[in-house]
């Protein structure tokens, strides 16, 4: 499994993928965090779904992580795309047969691939955290936000918890991408299905029938990063997300184990 992980990391660290993903994540994080701080005194929405995040809120211990977790959904979508393409491309490129000849245990292939992608997700979330904190710190004086509370033990503990939650959200979206990749065996189909579902269909469904938010996978994945919401608890989101992903992953893992590799 660790040999597979090492081989996968070698693929993931290729400059075209690594640099472009880092740049996208850094740019999105910088953009969203900047909006929060630059519009903090506007009296208009500067948070998720038009929420108003005032300088007073940002001056609290939680202000340190606000910019960090606001981008979690897009971080998740990025992970979905990367995980889906890295899995499905083995079929379209025909490289799966090479992998299976060198490592006949399909479960080891899957585990090693998953492990390498989790490492990749950790890297993405770390970049997200670093950029968000740097931008927050840099823009705090402009937004008249005091940062004294950001360096308390409460803030640091909150940072650690948010890091784990954002990471869980990223991995959940990535796992969803991997499931789609194994199911569709085509990067384009897997990515488009995942993105259209999470970004468009879930938003429309959740907006039209708000009670469905509790059941929608993407909404629940993102709710983990936010530490729960007023309508859906953190615990519920963790449970339902785990259930969706375990069931989905078990089905595709069985398919992957039993399916003939004929291309």
């Amino acid at each position, binding site marked *: 499994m660790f*040999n597979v992980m*090492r081989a996968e990391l*070698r693929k993931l660290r290729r400059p075209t993928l690594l640099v472009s993903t880092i740049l996208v994540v850094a740019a999105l994080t910088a953009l969203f965090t900047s909006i929060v701080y630059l519009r903090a005194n506007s009296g208009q929405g500067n948070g998720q779904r038009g929420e108003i995040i005032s300088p007073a809120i940002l001056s609290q211990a939680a202000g340190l992580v606000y910019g960090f977790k606001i981008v979690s959904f897009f971080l998740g979508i990025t992970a979905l795309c990367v995980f889906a393409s890295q899995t499905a491309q083995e079929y379209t490129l025909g*490289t799966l047969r090479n992998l299976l*000849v060198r490592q*006949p245990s399909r479960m080891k292939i899957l585990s090693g691939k998953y492990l390498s992608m989790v490492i990749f997700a950790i890297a993405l979330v770390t970049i997200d955290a670093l950029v968000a904190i740097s931008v927050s710190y840099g823009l705090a004086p402009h937004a008249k936000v005091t940062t004294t509370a950001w360096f308390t033990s409460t803030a640091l503990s909150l940072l650690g918890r948010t890091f784990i939650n954002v990471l869980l959200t990223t991995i959940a979206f990535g796992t969803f991408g991997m499931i789609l990749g194994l199911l569709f065996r085509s990067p384009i189909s897997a990515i488009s299905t995942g993105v259209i579902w999470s970004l468009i269909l879930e938003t429309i469904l959740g907006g039209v029938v708000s009670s469905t938010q509790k059941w929608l996978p993407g909404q629940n994945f993102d709710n983990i990063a936010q530490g729960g919401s007023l309508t859906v608890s953190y615990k519920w989101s963790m449970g339902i997300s785990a259930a969706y992903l375990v069931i989905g992953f078990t089905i595709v893992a069985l398919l992957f184990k039993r399916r003939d590799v004929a291309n």
Partner: protein
Amino acid sequence: MTSAISVTDLTKVYGERSALSHATFEVPLGTVCGFVGPNGSGKTTTIRMLLGLITPTGGTGTVLGESISHPERYLPQVGAMIEGPAFYPGLSGAENLKVLASLGGFPKERVATLLEKVGLADRGGSKYKTYSLGMKQRLGIAAALLPNPKLLVLDEPTNGLDPSGIQEVRNLIKDLASEGTSVFVSSHLLSELEMIAESLVMLREGKVLFAGRTQDLLAAQLATLVAEPEFSVDLNKLVDIAIRHGREASVEEGTVHIVADAEWGATFNRLAFNAGITLSALTATQATLEETFFEMTGE
């Protein structure tokens, strides 16, 4: 263990279609075995089953003495290139080999050696997507050699190679065989196989038509005597002489073709001379593998 590959009644059925039907053959250890058959005859299906990529519908088989139902026991000693090379286009040739070396737990130092061996030492750092078809094929062969295999399975290794590349692959296979590596190679270049394959497995429509020594196959084919008379008016007379002496004969492109081995050539020459016919040429030809293949497969 005397066989590198041994299969009995190996069968693969897709729905109603039988891709391979009760195939039984052996590939002796340390030899080069050619695997031939028209497109769609079941060659790749067989190779996929031997490599654990697809599950047989029926039958049994062993590779290097281990059952094909446990590919993890023999694949570390098997090198393979199936259905042409397949690599990651965004990685260099060397990086692609390192991915496979990491996966199989092989020393990465072998990558440079193998790139040198297949003539890609100077292009190892270039991205795979910039490679020509021949270079991709060479990289595929290098990947197959990564484990320093006891058995090498190659599916059309000379596709896209120029004549000198084909010759290099032929020499490479010969060298590997002389070092004790068993090679199971499918190819449409039958003249190449005739030069290197000690044994052959021939498939048609999923069934094994022949499995055994190449020499035995060729020897079983009747030789042909080709006689050219000094004057073309004598062509039909020569055919009559051959037929009168119990041989099949026909006129083809200004020559008489007689189904007979070389030893009957002297007798025929004498018979023609006695009939007042002078032969300007008389040659004995043995059927090539290609001719034998076409005759057996009806292609």
